[in-house]
């Protein structure tokens, strides 16, 4: 019991302390309060139009994601396809893809399209590509929120609908049955898609380099913000203070909306344990649609891999291994692929070792409190999810500035990225373990207790044994997120010598001037990261039972 409270307290300090210290540091350097900095925000040349751009991109991306995602969720949820689990894995893999890889995949796709059409892409094309990249990345959220309900709903409800006057047409059933049933799930997923598009960093930074959302604005100012050099750091501190505040308020509103909408979802009452899907083959219109969607999902990944073997020479793309040689030789980056990969894997393993037990105890605390004190459970849940309400760049900046405020030397420590990764991954562990704990039959542990098993025996042989599939899913999610984490690492690693693979890729893509090797080298490093993420995700997805989802 005491350990549980110690962990809750440590988590609260871990999350809140650096942010308070960071805001305090920024305010003291800016010498202005938050409201004044927000009032001036749109008049500064570094930040002009960034608020409207952020809202526009997030809103349009959300609409596009729903347009693409809902028919896909319907087809995956209502029909049983050959190799269904593999299909489902492919359509949900984008969510665990490192965002920097998505950016590179879409850039490579744009390059191929411009070569085929012999026409250079305009800034408008880049803007639309950004929207499609967001839709590609967030498609899994719509599927995870809507598909489980569609796949497990008792078929007798739709059959009853068909026999009644209001439900005897497809449109009638859609408008009178499915939409009223599904709208909380749809709206909850839309709110989360909005959050992830609002806080998008790598995609905006690399796909639309001439435009800035709030996240890119913060990252651009990160070098000087909060440092004790007032002449250089006052303006950056003001900008980061204002952007982070606007971002935090918007995201908290969206997350609260998502949480409230999820609690209104009544569809689960209609679910059965049976698989209610109708068998379907690819030899149909629906099959053709699904194949088109498969091409949409796979093409950025294929473009990334193929571009790693190509180099631009006199406006022609030529097959070459130079990108791979440069990536492994480190000739165009501070470290080579193997060193960066070693650092990334090291950080990922250390993150698992820390976030899994912390996430377990936090989930266990919420689970126990739900029965005794639901309000306190909700408060703890919000506290656990708080890092998700912050963006990766904000977490990185918060950690960094908080540490600078405490001791500037700490900012050069090797474990700094670990702090950020821990904050960003632990909420996902809780989101995986908590629903799994709620699904455990409480009588099992009670029966074990009555058979004489003490706490540790019950924990190891009943609780953890039954949670093993969820623990594997959570570990792989932590590993994938940590391995591909870019925003926080990009901000904090500038002071250290420990470069992770995404940071190495970001460094290659951000080099000033034109060098034909840089993109193929970044694509080669990206291909390594892509393959690791794909293998990890595909091997773990089979542990996820039918009907699971809704969380992560």
């Amino acid at each position: 019991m005491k350990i549980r409270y110690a962990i809750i307290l440590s988590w609260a300090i871990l999350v809140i302390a650096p942010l308070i210290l960071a805001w305090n540091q920024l305010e003291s350097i800016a010498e202005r309060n938050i409201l004044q900095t927000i009032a001036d925000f749109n008049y500064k040349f570094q930040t002009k139009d960034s608020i409207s751009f952020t809202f526009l991109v997030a809103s349009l991306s959300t609409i596009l994601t729903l347009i693409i995602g809902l028919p896909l969720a319907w087809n995956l949820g209502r029909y049983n396809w050959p190799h269904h689990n593999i299909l489902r894995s492919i359509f949900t893999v984008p969510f665990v893809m490192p965002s920097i890889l998505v950016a590179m995949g879409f850039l490579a796709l744009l390059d191929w399209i411009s070569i085929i059409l012999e026409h250079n892409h305009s800034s408008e094309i880049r803007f639309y590509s950004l929207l499609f990249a967001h839709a590609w990345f967030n498609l899994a959220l719509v599927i995870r929120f809507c598909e489980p309900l569609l796949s497990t709903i008792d078929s007798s409800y739709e059959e009853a609908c068909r026999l009644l006057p209001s439900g005897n047409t497809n449109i009638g059933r859609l408008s009178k049955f499915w939409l009223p049933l599904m709208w909380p799930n749809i709206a909850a997923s839309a709110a989360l898609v909005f959050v992830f598009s609002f806080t998008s960093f790598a995609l905006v930074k690399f796909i639309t380099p001439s435009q800035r959302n709030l996240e890119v604005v913060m990252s651009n100012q990160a070098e000087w913000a909060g440092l004790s050099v007032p002449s250089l750091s006052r303006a950056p501190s003001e900008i980061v203070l204002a952007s982070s505040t606007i971002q935090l308020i918007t995201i908290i509103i969206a997350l609260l909306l998502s949480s409230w909408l999820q609690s209104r979802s009544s569809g689960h009452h209609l679910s059965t344990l049976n698989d209610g899907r109708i068998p379907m083959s690819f030899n149909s219109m629906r099959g053709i649609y699904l194949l088109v969607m498969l091409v949409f999902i796979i093409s950025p990944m294929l473009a990334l891999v193929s571009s790693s073997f190509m180099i631009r020479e006199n406006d022609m793309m030529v097959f070459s291994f130079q990108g791979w040689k440069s990536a492994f030789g480190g000739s165009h980056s501070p470290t080579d692929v193997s060193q960066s990969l070693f650092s990334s894997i090291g950080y990922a393993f250390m993150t698992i070792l820390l976030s899994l037990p912390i996430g377990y105890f936090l989930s266990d605390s919420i689970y126990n409190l739900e029965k005794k004190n639901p309000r306190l459970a909700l408060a703890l849940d919000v506290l656990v999810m708080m890092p998700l309400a912050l963006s990766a760049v904000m977490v990185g900046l918060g950690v960094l500035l908080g540490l600078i405020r405490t001791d500037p030397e700490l900012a050069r420590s090797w474990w700094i990225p670990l702090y950020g990764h821990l904050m960003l991954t632990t909420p996902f562990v809780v989101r995986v373990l908590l629903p799994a704990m709620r699904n455990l039959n409480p009588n099992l542990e009670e029966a074990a207790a009555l058979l004489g098993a003490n706490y540790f025996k019950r924990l190891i042989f009943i609780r953890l044994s039954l949670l093993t599939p969820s623990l594997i899913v959570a570990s792989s999610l932590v590993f994938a997120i940590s391995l591909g984490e870019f925003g926080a690492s990009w901000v904090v690693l500038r002071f250290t010598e420990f470069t992770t693979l995404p940071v190495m890729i970001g460094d290659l893509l951000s080099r000033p001037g034109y060098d034909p090797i840089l993109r193929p080298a970044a694509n080669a490093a990206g291909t390594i990261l892509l393959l690791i993420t794909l293998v990890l995700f595909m091997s773990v997805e089979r542990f996820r039972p039918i009907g699971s989802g809704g969380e992560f």
Partner: protein
Amino acid sequence: MLVCESISKSYENEVLSNFNLEVGSDEIVALLGPSGSGKSTLLRIICGLENSDSGKVFFNGIDLEEIPPEKRGIGMVFQNLALFPHLNVHDNLKFGLPPNSSITRISEILELVGLKNFGPRKIQHLSGGESQRVALARSLIAEPKMILLDEPLSSLDAGIKESLSLEVRKMIKSLSIPAIYVTHDPIIANQMADRIVYLESNI
């Protein structure tokens, strides 16, 4: 001998109010009553899975209040049987085997409940009646000083229910331990019990 003294328990409504019960050292008592009358709650209080708001439970003269469920030596068969789905029949029984007991005890008890050679079977592959027997066997192998049965036959067909209830009674009687059997079926209560206690709904 079990003594429940002035047990009260409330959730949103009062479920048990100053309830008293005595169960003799080898007596089988059936608790009969409608849903919501507090039958299952009483069993959970007796074995320590829940605390009463007031009142005491004594077993062989010892106040059980401070004793955790795993130390009370009271076995229970749950309504949903609570068989561990990740373990096979043998390992479910092994979980209940007291330390220093011979592993052969598992085969003996399986034979006793008529499930010889069922050890390697997965829980998911058992029928309703077989699952019920395994759940009973798992409780008995722990050598409890008392056994509580919370409507374990409720999901079975009437015919199987009647024949199985007689078998269960025979097995409990052969161990000479007290038992409380919760049911809302008067026929089963009559077959199983030496004495029937009726609880009225407080809702």
